[in-house]
């Protein structure tokens, strides 16, 4: 039996982001924390949540202990309602079928732009990262939840490279670039839950996890973070949530 307070940062991320999902939604989930969190939500409070995977899967059933190593492998298809082409599943985003895109992130900025392409100058990069995959498509076409570790090097004022668009340069710049739908909805970290100002589209603190202070968050963030006036404190992961998670990922593939 886990006791409250006894969980990893990854478990915290999974639990907190799972609570943001609502029953009946269609969620386009990446592998890792998003997959775990969506499955957790489905198991506990969203029985009719539908999960989509980029490999081309609609409505799979993730079996405890049999987590897929990517969203492009046959394990993702077990007991699914439909298996279709990768382009076709991505087009569901464009057609407007998807309520929430749910991804991890390597680097994010004040406007919710994500970088998974380059560290340093893209012309002569220090590090060539893997690239966008479907991330750009998901972030361009759906409301987004991003789950990631909160570190200063990951929360930067402006990303070196906008791989997956948040609100671009803030204000209406996203809409004006040809992206009228979707946008960053929530960023979930091991320190708190973040949203975006309706007008400026800058990131703001919505809630902090128990025991975390604004100063701590600011210290780990490369730009100035406003706090929502009604900023709250999240409820710690419950035993029920943690038990479910640990049954799901007994080998701690994604929750170590």
């Amino acid at each position: 039996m886990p006791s409250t307070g006894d969980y990893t940062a990854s478990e915290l991320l999974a639990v907190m982001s799972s609570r943001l999902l609502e029953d009946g939604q269609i969620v386009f989930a990446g592998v890792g924390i998003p997959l775990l969190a969506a499955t957790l939500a489905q198991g506990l409070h969203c029985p009719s949540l539908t999960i989509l995977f980029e490999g081309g899967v609609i409505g799979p059933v993730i079996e405890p202990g049999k987590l897929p190593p990517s969203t492009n492998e046959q394990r993702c298809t077990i007991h699914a309602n439909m298996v279709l082409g990768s382009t076709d599943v991505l087009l569901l985003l464009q057609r407007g079928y998807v309520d929430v895109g749910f991804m991890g992130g390597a680097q994010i900025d004040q406007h919710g732009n994500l970088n998974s392409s380059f560290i340093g100058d893209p012309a002569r990069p220090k590090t060539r990262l893997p690239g966008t995959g479907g991330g750009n498509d998901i972030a361009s076409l759906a409301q987004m939840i991003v789950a990631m570790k909160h570190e200063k090097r990951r929360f930067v004022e402006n990303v070196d490279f906008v791989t997956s668009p948040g609100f671009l340069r803030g204000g209406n710049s996203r809409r004006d670039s040809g992206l009228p739908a979707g946008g960053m909805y929530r960023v979930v970290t091991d320190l708190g839950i973040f949203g975006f100002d309706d007008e400026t589209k800058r990131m703001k603190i919505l809630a902090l996890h128990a025991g975390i202070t604004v100063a701590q968050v600011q210290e780990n963030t490369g730009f100035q973070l406003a706090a929502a006036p009604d900023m709250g404190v999240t409820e710690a992961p419950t035993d029920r949530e943690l038990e479910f998670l640990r049954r799901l990922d007994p080998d701690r593939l994604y929750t170590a």
Partner: protein
Amino acid sequence: MMSPSYLDLRRRLTERDRSLREKVMSLTEAASLVKDGDTVGIGGSTLSRTPMAMIWALIRARRKTLTCARGITSSEGDWLLGSGACDRVVTSWFSQGIVWGISKVMRYYVESGAVRFDEWSHMAMGMRFKAGAMGVPFLPMRSMLGSDVMRQRPEAREMDCPFSGDRLLLVPALNPDVALIHVQRCDAYGNAQIDGLQFLDIDLAMAANRVILTTERIISNDQIRRAPDQTKIPFFAVEAVVEVPFGCAPHECSGAYEPVYEHMDYYTALVNNNPVDGMQEYLDRYVYGPASWVDYLNLLGLNALLDAARRGRSVSNA
């Protein structure tokens, strides 16, 4: 990669013998159909249905300056870069897989400038093959807009839609010289069935000027004709059929086997430790060394293969 004119594109199809004829050959013979400098579309995605045996044969044939296009690129991309076969990658993502993290081989070759990495979104890769399959010069889409991924790709063009006024991105057709695709089964003519995840393979097959199929097994044309709505690639798109059981190892083939994880662990540790010497050691031992693909499989070990097959079956029977 200058796109050919529409008439040239058509001519490349009509020059081929597209009659219903047997085209079963060896990996070596099939490799000779790929020329240095070709644009090669690679089927499957990440660790799934990767045409590993065919890529292995191309490296042994010492192909050079290939441009390789795939939706999601994994360790087969390492092989192509590390062997010198490929100097340009067109993809949305290049890593060894989430379990092993970012490819140090990719990093070494791309960061040094030796290899060009053209990044598109996954849907853009799909649209580019789809445009190629449809015989149109572009398709419109609504992602990549506003991002730096788009800014790095002047080959794509923004457009204000004449119908709606919406801003759209037009992505150019990608018609590879050849597509390498692995399937669960096909007949001797190249009529192919694919189980499970299809990825971008159907559009890729129809976009390419010709397809080299590797297959877990060759079935009779009678079997194909019994369920023609299960045929996913028509024979006339196909130029070569090679029967290669375990042709995706150490990657997976849906319903047949899962990845050979032990070998992936060994491989990634070796090449990430030293992307040049480690890769050379791997290539010498596993690609240039074996007398045949079966010998390569022997190096992976029968036990590991049977375990992968047991896991593959258990997934499809779940």
